[in-house]
């Protein structure tokens, strides 16, 4: 039961994280491969704030604000790039964040990581049920807000920009402003997911925020279906289920250490096959199959 609770909470965190990526990647066509950087920023800012004796909700709020602000700042130079250039540059950004976390020991304790992060406490209760309820609440509210954003004229204009930037500009849309705002929002939610993750796990170190996580989340979004609200939800559930399921494979004892490697190989393979066979994912945004 405890294990099931744990998996559900992790799954909810991934849903939140991948939905925030989906806003950028699916709706605005911004292929942000450095999303894990904002997750890390959220995790670290909430941790540091709560460790200086502020309440946890304060940590959540500030993690959103800080991640969102960094997102806006980062996007300003990088948005001059389009498509895959932007992707690789954002990935470099995430690595930069990781290097900063590793090297600024006075703040982050470097590779040792920060243990003893305060747990989430609601009415004096600290247990996994509380965590689950809070996670459920945060994720539902965030999904609701994201849905609202997507169905608003803002979301519609984002789609216009994704489909054709030239048309959008010819009709007077300030493309850069839209993109910066999108990245700020996406980063804020990624920061929230990171903060929750930090408080749930209780220990963070820079090595939790590697490219591995980016690829996992990318897989959640791409597998589920880009640009749909439900896509990342479905994608996250499948990815977590398969990833966890691998642990139960009857492997010889010598192989158990390499489960993580098998996992990443499998995820990589699924990404490749997905691109070759069904790039639009499980839930296609439009029933119209667009030949590209």
């Amino acid at each position, binding site marked *: 039961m405890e294990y099931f609770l744990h998996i559900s909470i992790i799954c909810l965190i991934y849903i939140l994280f991948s939905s925030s990526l989906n806003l950028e990647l699916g709706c605005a066509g911004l292929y942000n491969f450095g999303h894990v950087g904002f997750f890390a920023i959220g995790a670290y800012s909430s941790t540091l704030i709560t460790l200086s004796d502020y309440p946890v909700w304060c940590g959540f709020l500030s993690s959103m604000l800080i991640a969102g602000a960094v997102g806006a700042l980062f996007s300003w130079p990088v948005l001059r790039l389009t498509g895959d250039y932007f992707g690789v540059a954002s990935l470099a950004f995430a690595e930069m964040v990781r290097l900063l976390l590793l090297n600024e020991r006075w703040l982050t304790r470097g590779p040792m990581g920060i243990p003893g992060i305060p747990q989430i406490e609601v009415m004096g209760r600290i247990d996994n049920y509380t965590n689950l309820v809070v996670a459920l609440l945060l994720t539902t509210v965030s999904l609701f807000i994201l849905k*609202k*954003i997507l169905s*608003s*004229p*803002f979301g*519609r*204009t984002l*789609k*216009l920009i994704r*489909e*054709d930037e*030239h*048309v959008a*500009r*010819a*009709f*007077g*849309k*300030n*493309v850069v402003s*839209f993109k910066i*705002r999108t990245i700020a*929002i996406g980063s804020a939610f990624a920061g929230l997911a990171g903060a929750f993750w930090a408080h749930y796990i209780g220990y963070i170190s820079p090595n939790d925020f590697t490219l591995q996580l980016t690829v996992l989340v990318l897989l959640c979004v791409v597998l589920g279906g880009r*640009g749909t609200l439900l896509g990342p939800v479905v994608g996250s559930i499948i990815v977590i289920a398969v990833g966890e399921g691998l642990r139960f494979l009857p492997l010889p004892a010598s192989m158990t250490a390499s489960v993580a490697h098998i996992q990443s190989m499998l995820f990589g393979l699924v990404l490749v096959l997905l691109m070759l066979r069904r790039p639009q994912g499980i839930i296609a*945004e*439009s*029933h*119209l199959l*667009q030949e590209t």
Partner: protein
Amino acid sequence: MLNVTSISKKFGGNQVLTDVSIKLDRATPITGLIGPNGSGKSTLFQIIMGFCSQDSGRVEFSGRRLDSLPPEKRCHAGLSLTFQDSRMLSFMTVEDNLTAIPTPQYGESLVRTFLFPRMVRRQEQEIRDKASDILKLLSLSDQARQPAGSLSYGQRKLLEIGRVMMTDPQLVLLDEPTAGINPTLIQSLVNVLETLVDKGIRFFLVEHNMPLVSQLCDRVLVLDAGELIFDGTAADARSDEKVVRAYLGSDVHAVS
């Protein structure tokens, strides 16, 4: 209205436009721009709209210099452009193709979306009404909820004009609006254009269909190899020696 002064443009070693000057005024509702393939018509449009920068020369619109403005600002000044390769927003519905266009919308601000939903909703209703009127005019109402990718090529071209109608531009640059569409649809396109002209919108169009050009355009400009070689009425253009040579000689150019 539009004042283009001695525009030149080179791509690599290729001189695409040489010292082109064009003056359009409000008195002429539709001006045609014709010329053999590769004569620089589309490039000129891209330069006027700001998607491509000129090497030298000026673009002025309603007395305002546009040279340093990005396309979106030029749009705010009253210019609009349709693209030669029908750029479809295939994954959006036909209706969204129109409703996304007006700028600025209240709902594009997130603060307003969350704090003043009523204001956003009211404007949204106006936009939708306008869109549905336009769809009716284009006889696309039945497809409003379908993805735009499912439309026929001709219908897409119509929808593109519909997008222009959502804004209130003063001058629209139409890049080959009738390329590849059937005669019936061409007629409805012509009707739509005439309605818009009555509303006070002016057009500058690139077109290969000569009968249509003589029917629509009161004034015709001819570009050949990046140079403006004719400016006058369509009837005169047909008999102008240089124009005829440009068209007949274009084959010779291509081979050499």
